[in-house]
């Protein structure tokens, strides 16, 4: 559990500071895979609900969503750079500060031991997702940020001791999957209308 949480935390930081899109998508897939292993570790023995949750998490977050995103990247021909509004240095410092503040926040929440590390990793994922969503110029990166943010909430929920309830989690997966799917379609539409997906230029639109 602790090792998984630390790996997820590092992946979150990697995602927030990565400058290219494909490594970010690979990092996202790795996050999905690790999150999938989480419910298996928490339950003793073989619980069919935990197994179902594990399989569906890995299928949706570890495989399907990264596949949609990487397909979008190659179809849209948007290049490698994910073009951030802030410099990489600023992103590294911000992520570091946010990570440390996540540890302090979990201390205040009253989480202790491995729950505190899990909670801090969840908050770090949430923060780095938020950072990616708000500072990246390209639409694909913003979608990646959204998925990471959702991963963070999942991990935070797992660490704060709430039970994994299958129907709710499956509902969230469906929502997330549909959201990413729709965003993918939307990106194709924007691409067709404006020949690029640089959202900074939307400000220049007039009716």
């Amino acid at each position: 559990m602790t090792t998984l949480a630390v790996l997820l935390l590092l992946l979150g930081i990697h995602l927030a500071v990565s400058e290219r899109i494909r490594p970010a998508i690979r990092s996202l897939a790795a996050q999905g895979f690790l999150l999938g292993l989480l419910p298996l570790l928490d339950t003793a023995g073989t619980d069919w609900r935990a197994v179902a949750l594990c399989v569906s998490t890995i299928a949706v977050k570890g495989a399907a969503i990264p596949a949609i995103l990487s397909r979008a990247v190659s179809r849209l021909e948007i290049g490698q750079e994910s073009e951030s509004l802030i410099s990489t240095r600023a992103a590294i410092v911000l992520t570091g500060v946010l990570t440390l503040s996540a540890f302090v926040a979990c201390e205040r929440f009253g989480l202790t031991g491995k729950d505190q590390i899990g909670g801090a990793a969840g908050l770090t994922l949430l923060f780095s997702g938020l950072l990616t969503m708000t500072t990246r110029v390209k639409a694909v990166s913003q979608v990646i940020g959204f998925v990471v943010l959702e991963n963070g909430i999942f991990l935070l929920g797992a660490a704060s001791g709430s039970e994994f309830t299958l129907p709710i989690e499956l509902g969230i997966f469906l929502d997330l999957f549909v959201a990413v799917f729709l965003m993918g379609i939307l990106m194709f539409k924007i691409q067709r209308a404006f020949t690029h997906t640089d959202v900074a230029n939307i400000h220049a639109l007039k009716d």
Partner: protein
Amino acid sequence: MESLLHMTLFLALAPLLSGIVRKTKAFLSCRRGAPLAQPYLDLWKLFRRGIVRSTTASWIFDLSGPVVLGGALVLAAATPLYGREVPIPMHFVFYIYLMALPRFFQTLAGLDTGSAFGGLGSSREAAVSAMAEPALLLALCGLAHLGAADSIGGFLASLPSGSVFRHPETILIAGTLFLLLIAENARIPVDDPTTHLELTMIHEAMVLDHAGVDLAMIQMASHLRLAVFSALASSVLFPHSLTLTPGLGVPAAMLRLALCGVLIGAVEAGTARMKLSRVAPFLMVATVLASIALALQYAG
């Protein structure tokens, strides 16, 4: 007797480690490469040569070679290699200062020769080491907390062994130390030790005006420094190897250093040199990793 063995091992193995790095690099880029003993041969060649000195150089220049080598020797004496006993037990903050002292003299000597490249290399080297220092301090602080001691030999040997999964912060600290190894020893993503273009050099530009015995001392010092960093980073991952008897500990230490050399060679062969402006983010990542390792201990 133990001290003698310790220092002999460090002096004998350090050039070999550099040789392993070069050989791995050559092998991975499909070249045959120089023989493993090439660093020894280079040192021998340089020791027999005379010194050519810049006319503007002062006594600082003459002093730099011995000070750099002396500093590296004391550093080696304080770093545990095959057991927890070291010839000079040393507080970890003093250890960090001792790393800075030879570099200070070397940058001065680089400026002293009056050549343009010396000054350029000195300023870059000072910048890189200044940015590397906070990460090193945080990493050693983390180790001191984890091992509940404040001397280098003390905390490395009492790290909880075989517990990489229970104490994931040791991986983070080992990672930080490896990034610092690359930055502090002028290895490829940060600096290219074999480049022939002075404008892109960091470390090599600084020692460009040294020759003969002076250069041999400086090269020996950088071999030692690489060995010290490798010993440090690898013993964080395998703290158990420091508690063995000398009979088992010495081969274990050699194996650790060889693994480290192969890893460095692989990184050198697999990555491209970074722009100078990218070195700062690289070292910031090291600092962030080290501070997360500290935060993890605070949490766990």
